């Protein structure tokens, strides 16, 4: 009898300790007891999802771990002087974190490791210029589409190549990212394996283009514009030969988090924050006005 009481007492204490441990002091702007509906800034999602298991766990941890790129201008780019991660993807992470009432934490996720990071729970969500594809939907869940990119080619300004077809016809080497939809698209369009020069990051691919180790870099235009801005003498060319819907990646089995994030995205479109993000991060490179938000693609 005394033994059972002791065990019950121990369990009760353990539960109480967990609860107390969840309230990390200085960092979270809102105490765990607040639901997101309370914070004035966050356009709250449907109140019924506010208490879902994943959402609660993240709120208890006080942190939203986002896997983002650190080397893609306009989307996920770590500023070398300030150390802050800037860009469309990074700001989306901040918006979601604010809606949850937690701090955002940025973890670098390159194309090859972002899905394993999700599946191993090393990050809560992945926002890293990741295209939603049938293949990936087998492995992870996606939020609504937050940006529609398209694949093009990046070449030296004095290059004779205008379109991907020219590169394929000439058997020229093309650089891209390991494990990206871009390299799959290139293979589908006739670039043979030996002509695919693949790197872990797009900054390495740009370096290889400048050195002449390949004749072009091909991936989403959003990434290419950033590479062109950063490096003298490179141009984005060719028709956009794919439609790349970019979504936020979430591990399967966390439906409440998916709904929450979709709610945040809908709210951002409704009150103009999505267009604001576009104007801040994308418009300087494309010179074009924000298109229709592609959320329900």
């Amino acid at each position, binding site marked *: 009898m005394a033994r059972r009481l002791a065990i019950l007492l121990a369990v009760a204490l353990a539960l109480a300790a967990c609860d107390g441990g969840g309230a990390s002091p200085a960092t979270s702007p809102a105490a765990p007891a607040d639901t997101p509906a309370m914070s004035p800034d966050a356009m709250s999602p449907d109140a019924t999802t506010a208490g879902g298991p994943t959402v609660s766990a993240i709120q208890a941890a006080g942190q939203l771990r986002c896997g983002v790129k650190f080397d893609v201008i306009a989307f996920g780019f770590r500023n070398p002087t300030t150390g802050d991660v800037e860009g469309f993807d990074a700001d989306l992470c901040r918006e979601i974190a604010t809606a949850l009432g937690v701090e955002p934490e940025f973890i670098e996720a390159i*194309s*090859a490791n972002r*899905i*394993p990071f999700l599946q191993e729970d090393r990050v809560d969500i992945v926002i890293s210029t990741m295209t939603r594809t049938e293949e990936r939907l087998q*492995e992870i869940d996606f939020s609504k589409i937050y940006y529609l990119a398209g694949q093009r080619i990046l070449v030296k300004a004095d290059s004779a190549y205008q379109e991907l077809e020219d590169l394929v016809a000439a058997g020229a*080497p093309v650089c891209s990212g*390991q*494990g990206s939809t871009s390299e*799959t698209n290139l293979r589908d369009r006739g670039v043979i*394996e*030996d002509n695919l*020069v*693949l*790197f*872990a990051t797009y900054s390495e691919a740009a*370096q*290889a283009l*400048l*050195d*002449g*180790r*390949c004749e072009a870099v091909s991936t989403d235009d959003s990434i290419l514009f950033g590479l062109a801005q950063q490096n003298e003498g490179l141009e984005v060319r060719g028709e956009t030969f794919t439609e790349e819907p970019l979504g936020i990646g979430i591990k399967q089995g966390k439906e409440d988090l998916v709904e929450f994030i979709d709610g945040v995205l809908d709210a951002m479109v409704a009150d103009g924050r999505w267009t604001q993000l576009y104007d801040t991060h994308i418009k300087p490179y494309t010179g074009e006005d924000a298109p229709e938000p592609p959320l329900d693609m």
Partner: protein
Amino acid sequence: MFGQVIANNFGLFAQGYLTTILLSVSALAAALAIGALMASMRVWGGPVLSAIAGFYVEFFRNTPLLIQLFFFAVVLAPANLGITRDAVVVAIIGLSIYTGAFATEAIRSGILAVDPGQIEAARSLALGPVATIRLIVLPQAIRTVIPPLGNVASALVRNTSVAYAIGAREFLFMGILVQSRTFSPEPYLGILLGYWSLTIPLAIGLSRLERRMVFAR
């Protein structure tokens, strides 16, 4: 079922495996040649040659192979020296130079282990320096040198995997490629077993070689 992912992508893995063998064999041959040359310069070369060989060893032995390969990839590229843009060729060159530094030290210890009386005897027979090295010193030095060179060769086989980072389509590159296309961790295990299948026979061959050499002592 285990092995399915590997079986589906067997062509890529086979190509990678053969490339790794190519890298290992060519870089080893070149490294031995470089090592013999540099070791001779160090031991008999006089102050200038000895210093050059010494600098070569200390620099390439004590800096990371990965950085050296990045460096060679950029320097040899069309926009710079214009020697090659093929990552496999760059890898062979880089691995030869890196491994050559270790080979130099192994060979040098072997040379120094040869009785100086042998060299005096060779000189008294009017054998020139090159002939002395080739016919008298190196054959005797080889005996001392097999175990450390065996380690160098085994390390080289494993170091070829570093070339994936410059885009050389060798075994590890293929493993990562298949992993990133299929999201399966199976290729990693396959890669480990693959490298093992190269280093174990190497180790067995080397110990047989050592045993055959022992009788001469």
